[in-house]
């Protein structure tokens, strides 16, 4: 099924917020690196994904540093809480040097836009997201990463290694192109955090959310 068909099927099913497991599967198809599912070796992350609970940690639906032996029991326990959820068992990323947020939305004035900035816990601390029109070219995406407070983080502060900015710029552009091409169906995409490894080592999208348009045609 094409990405458009998948999105359309979600719209037809009456979904509004698409949970992480489904959102990540779509990102993976798009060529965005996502964590390996059900790997043989730990540490692992166990999450319970459900459209009604986008903020999983607020509901105890995320467990980090889980061993492969313990994962099935933890997943079962979470599933018992939310019976129609999807349990997601993934490799836990340990090698990232910075966390980034990459999001797209429909702005009431300018239409499709893309935002990128320091992510993870820093989202709460800094309001340093760079915003551009979507789709953004890889060049524009690179320029977003070279601007503002985020640029210093990516370059590596106080001896920290530089992050793989080129891979991040590629992801930003890819997501923005995808969003702009499907903005008749999607109102927002957010990947937060993107775990960016040291330069040359790539990155992985650790969490993702897709919000479908309320007025999308079924």
């Amino acid at each position, binding site marked *: 099924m094409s990405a458009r068909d998948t999105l359309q099927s979600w719209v037809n099913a009456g979904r509004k917020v698409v949970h992480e497991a489904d959102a990540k599967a779509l990102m993976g198809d798009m060529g965005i690196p996502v964590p390996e599912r059900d790997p043989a070796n730990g540490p692992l992350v166990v999450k319970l994904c459900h459209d009604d609970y986008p903020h999983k940690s607020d509901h105890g639906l995320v467990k980090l540093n889980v061993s492969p032996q313990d994962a099935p029991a933890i997943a079962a326990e979470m599933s018992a809480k939310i019976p129609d959820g999807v349990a997601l068992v993934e490799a836990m990323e340990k090698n990232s040097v910075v966390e980034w947020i990459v*999001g797209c939305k429909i702005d009431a004035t300018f239409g499709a836009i893309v935002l990128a900035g320091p992510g993870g816990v820093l989202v709460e601390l800094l309001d340093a997201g760079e915003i551009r029109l979507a789709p953004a070219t890889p060049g524009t995406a690179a320029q977003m990463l070279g601007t503002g407070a985020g640029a210093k983080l990516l370059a590596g502060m106080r001896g920290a290694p530089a992050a793989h900015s080129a891979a991040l710029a590629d992801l930003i552009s890819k997501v923005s192109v995808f969003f702009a091409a499907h903005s008749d169906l999607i109102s927002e995409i957010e990947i937060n955090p993107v775990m960016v490894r040291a330069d040359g080592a790539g990155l992985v999208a650790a969490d993702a959310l897709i919000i479908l348009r309320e007025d999308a045609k079924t």
Partner: protein
Amino acid sequence: MTKTPLNATESARPSLDDALQTLFDPENIAVVGASRTKGKLGQAVLELLKKNNYRGKIIPVNPSGGEIEGLKVAKSLSEIDEPVDVAVLSTPVNIALDALEECARIGVKVVVGVTSGFNEAGEDGSENEARLQQILKTAPFRLIGPNCEGVVRPRSDLQLTFSPMFDGLDDGPVAMISQSGALAGLMALRLGERGVGLSAIVSSGNETDITAADLMEYFGADPVTRVILCYLEELRDGRRFAEVAKKLTDAGKQVVVVKGGRSGAGTRAVQSHTGAMAGDDRVVSSIFREVGVIRARDSVSAVDATIALATGRKPAGRRVAIISVTGGLGVEMTDMAETEGFEVPVLADKTQKALSEYVPYYGSVTNPVDLTGVVLANPSYVGRCLEAVCDDPGIDIAIAIITFVPNQTFVEALAEAYKKTNKPVLIIWTGASRSAASGDAFRENGVPLYDSPARAASGLAALRGAGEVQ
């Protein structure tokens, strides 16, 4: 995202280019609601058209007929026995709606709707708005407004407005688009007072048909226009506005925008961080910057920015020389220049040597240059000092600061020095009203003139290019 035409029978409608060409240089203008009664909008429109020597034919339209201001009155639009280029509607809304239908019937090319009472009036205007939309679906004309103050174009002696704020303007490099007529008036008057001419002013009102983006695109193709100055409250087609702005700024035109209603972005429930981080005002600033727009905080800083850009002189870098007849103002200007991201570097040895011929030992020739009060006794010195810093290859922009001026030579020497360089020069004259000299030499030569370092800083910030001007 392209704009959906309002009109089903597009072929019958003049293209935007044709319509605006006609609007800015019409052969005739029908004034619907023309009146003899002082205080009525239709009377003011007629008076201002005549007073500013409009070259075409004015046709007053009023059911009572007869003559107004020596012009034969048509009892209705249908009674006019020649094609009408422009009809201006300055009547109450009910009459205006009837007149719009008549404009459609007789094939008027462009309508300027001064009349209010449409969607800007909320609920009360909704019926009128619906009828307007209905008329526009099949109308052969293009519409400016409604709820606007009109159109001014000095180049063709066209003063199609009820507001005297636009009187006596000269042609020049600035085109203005304003969703508020009053703000257009303020900015036009201030620009005119400082010797900056206007290629056109459009009070675009509700922009029900022709939008700011349409007008900007048109002005972008006008070779006289260097700067497009906009006051906007609501961007009707923001995506197209952004795309047009990018095209123009890439081609070397300057776009300065005051976007009103900054504080209006209310808090609302958002499900994602993206939604929270991309608040309306941050998006506007970011996208404006991306497409090369200079965003001014308010109408006064927008005028100050525009004055610096109107000369067409673009700095090669960010190195500023500041010369001042007083140390204090030089220091204040230096602080502001550095805050705006400019350098105030030490001048070249050769420049310092040239300056020391005029500056006494207790002054300073490094940068900022303190000429001291001694120069007041030698009116031509300031001009020579300005020339010297402009000749410095390590300087991209020069700022000269004067206070009270004892005689005319002073102003003329600075204006002469301005003419001799191609670098941007800003003049700060804090005591124009306490000086025994006229500033005409500045105005006639288009020298950017400010009354304080803070306002010159707005001009300086604009020379940086895309970004925010306080």
